[in-house]
């Protein structure tokens, strides 16, 4: 009888442990998909996947974090395609998820502040001329908070490098300086250990990509 109980208990444990790994498994699977998404539609579907996971796992901050990240990536693709008019809606969605994530993770999470910065940058791109003073300033503010909270974070270094890279030389930016900063970011990536397998760990490939660009292109 004891054995029956034991096997039941074992079966139960294996089921619950399976349930736990179920979250990890699906998260791992979806996080891996970030790299394969190309179009705004891909990113939207991925954001929806994370939203779904988040509504089931309502105590986890990572699903809404990744939902926000997928939204922001969607916005960035749209921005590159010159479709800046709808970025407000995308940023609003991202901010909604970031609010959820922050409620769960606390206000001192540098990763969330970095995404907030990226969301404000998207908003600014709708009308840079008029929004620089508002959304641009708020983006800079979020960046400042993120930096203060986690100076060694490679993603913060990456986004800063990107800002420098895309700023024309006449305005104090430069591609060469940007590449230097990407190299610094890469060094930080190499030294960085995410807290868990699911914690944010994106961006290294991007730094490598910019560093790998032929130098004539960086001029």
């Amino acid at each position, binding site marked *: 009888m004891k054995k029956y109980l034991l096997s039941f208990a074992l079966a139960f444990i294996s089921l619950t442990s399976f349930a736990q790994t179920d979250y990890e498994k699906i998260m791992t699977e979806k996080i891996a998909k970030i790299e394969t998404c190309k179009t705004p539609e891909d990113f939207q579907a991925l954001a929806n*996947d994370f939203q779904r996971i988040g509504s089931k796992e309502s105590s986890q901050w990572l699903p809404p974090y990744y939902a926000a990240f997928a939204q922001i990536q969607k916005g960035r693709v749209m921005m590159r395609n010159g479709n800046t008019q709808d970025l407000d809606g995308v940023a609003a969605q991202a901010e909604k998820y970031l609010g959820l994530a922050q409620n769960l993770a606390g206000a001192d999470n540098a990763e969330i502040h970095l995404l907030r910065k990226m969301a404000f940058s998207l908003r600014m791109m709708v009308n840079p*001329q008029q929004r620089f003073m508002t959304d641009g300033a708020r983006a800079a503010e979020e960046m400042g908070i993120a930096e203060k909270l986690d100076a060694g974070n490679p993603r913060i270094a990456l986004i800063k490098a990107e800002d420098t890279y895309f700023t024309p030389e006449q305005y104090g930016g430069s591609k060469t300086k940007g590449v230097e900063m990407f190299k610094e970011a890469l060094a930080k990536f190499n030294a960085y250990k995410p807290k868990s397998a699911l914690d944010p760990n994106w961006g290294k490939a991007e730094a490598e990509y910019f560093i790998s660009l032929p130098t004539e292109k960086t001029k």
Partner: protein
Amino acid sequence: MKMQAQKLLFLFSFLAFMMGYAQIRVSGKVTFKNKGISEVNVTLKDTYDGATTDARGNFSFETSEKGSHILTFTHPKYENVEKNVTIENQDVSVNADLREQISEIDAVVVSAGSIEASDRKRATALLTPIDIYTTAGADGQISSALTYLPGVQKVGGTEGLFVRGGTGTESKIFMDGSLINNYFSNSVPGIAGRDQFNTSLFKGNIFSSGGYSALYGQALSGALMLESVDLPDQTSYNFGISPIFLNAGFQKLGNNKNYSYGASAGYSILSLMQKIFNFNTDFIDAPQGVNGDLNFRIKTKSGGFLKYYGMYNSNKMGVRSESLEPGYNFSLVRLNGQNTYHNLSFKQKFGKYLLNVGGSYSYNRSDLHFSTETNGAESARNRLLTDGNYINFKAVLERKINRISAVRAGFELNNTDEKLNFEEVQKHYKDLISSVFAETDLGFSNALSAKIGVRAEHSSFLDKSNIAPRFALAYRLAKDWTTSLAYGLFYQNPESKYINAPADLGFQKSQHYIFQVQRASEGRTLRFEAFYKKYDQLIKTFNVTPGKEQNQQVQTALNNDGYGYAKGMELFWRDNKKTFKNIDYWISYSFLDSKRDFLNYPVSLKPGFAADHTLSAVVKRFIPEWKLGANLSYTYAKGRPYYDIATQLEDGKVMNYTRNEGKLQDYNALNFSINYLPNIGKKDAKAFPVFVLSITNILGSKNVYGYNFSVDGSRSSAVVPPVNTFVFIGAFISFGVDKTDDAINNNL
């Protein structure tokens, strides 16, 4: 046996486990009005299972869940839908039809007649302060920049916005809801006054060339609503220097970013430029002015916002022109103008209500001296002194009904007290216009909205009241394409300058019908507008023979028998750096057909301020490598008519008749300006200078604004701009504010 039982149990639980994870396919289609919607998030509630719909609205996913579940459909632009599903051993198909969520962002807004420069409706034509400063020929003045938009005419010799066949006084200008009684500086006949308000004081503006909101009144043609800036982003100091002016100012921001204050002062004088350029106008006293302003803004703890702005401005000039009257060589006019304006406004939210109150006081003095000069000797001076005190108060309470509907109501008091002193003539004009108004924005769906308003006014001077209903409808034809219709009644008191003798007068009236189609997409705007405007009860006047020192006729109002119409169509196209990198350009064309019988017109005539065709183009190019912005603008207006109208008394009845008439030559002006920003991008720069060079009317076209006639009508002289071609150079330097990123983002 035990082992077998165990094995069986294991097998059984394994099978149950497998069964439990057997995959069932859930699929379906999500639609709105029978069209598939993409990007809808379909979720089997409280599971990881779900999918996102594709471009045709189809979705499909597999699940191992069993039994009764809820399937949710979410999309930010549609209302959430939940459907019960029972999952057993067969694939399930679930379709859903969603309802549109009404939202402020997606709702169509009424844009007939109005051009708005605010962030919210970014898709419409924008004229931000930066747009205005970088429009060549606009001189940094809001009113001049507006002449490059459709519907506003370039008139020249008189200040004011001449909108769609309306006179300059048929458009009113408001600051934070309060009327600005003297937006333009005092002027002498033939030389237009300038904007007295600093363009950078306003963060946005809504310019309505007709069919405007019931919140505003006393303008037969149009309204310009200026919104002043809120708290500055940081403390800064600035000064500007050029051969014609000097100014300095600062803005201080409180540590907690809950208050700010600032002040500026300036002095301008034209005498140096007079020595260099060949002026058409003979200034005996070079135009000069002193101006200063003061502001504070406070955010209260309870979430209210208090703003104050006050300014003082004085200007002086003297002009000598060849006399048209026999026996005199020259006629002289000297102006000493003074103006002060104070505006205090407060707004706060109380739950669903938003309260907006504001008051303004202004005082204006125009002190004109007329004289003649014969053989070097100047005659005694006649003085025309006008003192005006104006008080305006307005309160508006707004309540939101749902996401896109609102009701607004309030009242406005507008008190005028003017004293005119000309030789033995003493005039004291007093009028209190009390108004009440109510307006509602009704959003029926994201594609259809309406605005219904009514305004009632009482004038103590006229001792009459009016009721003006207004109505507008907007409909979205397709993505990016909207159409709107507007209708409204508008009333305006006769101008006090025409009230020089007792007469039974009433409100002047106009009716607007406006139809608009607009295509607004990312960086591009295309607008087509057609309008019909009907005037009634315009005042009729006759000429009081003027003195020989001034060739401007003094007119006095007789009755309200005037009438008229204006109709036309306008096209506007703006492409903001979308087609050509770093190039922002816009083109506007206006066709206007107007006739009216008003003032001293003997019959119905095409008014002297109405050009049939007006075309303008503005091009701005930023060259990042050179840190240079280059701007061009061009205006063409078909020649307007001009009239010399005299008055005769026949059997005690007033008879007006045309002695001379003709047509002006076409108006042409090509303007050019460049801005050079050398410190852009210098990270450690402390000062941020902007150097400006502008040349107005490069081609030197000899433009004529109209003609003046002698008292007997036998001689005439052209009214021309003070200078044909003008070159301006200046430097504007600011400290404390790094404009680097600003410039980048403005010009990328």
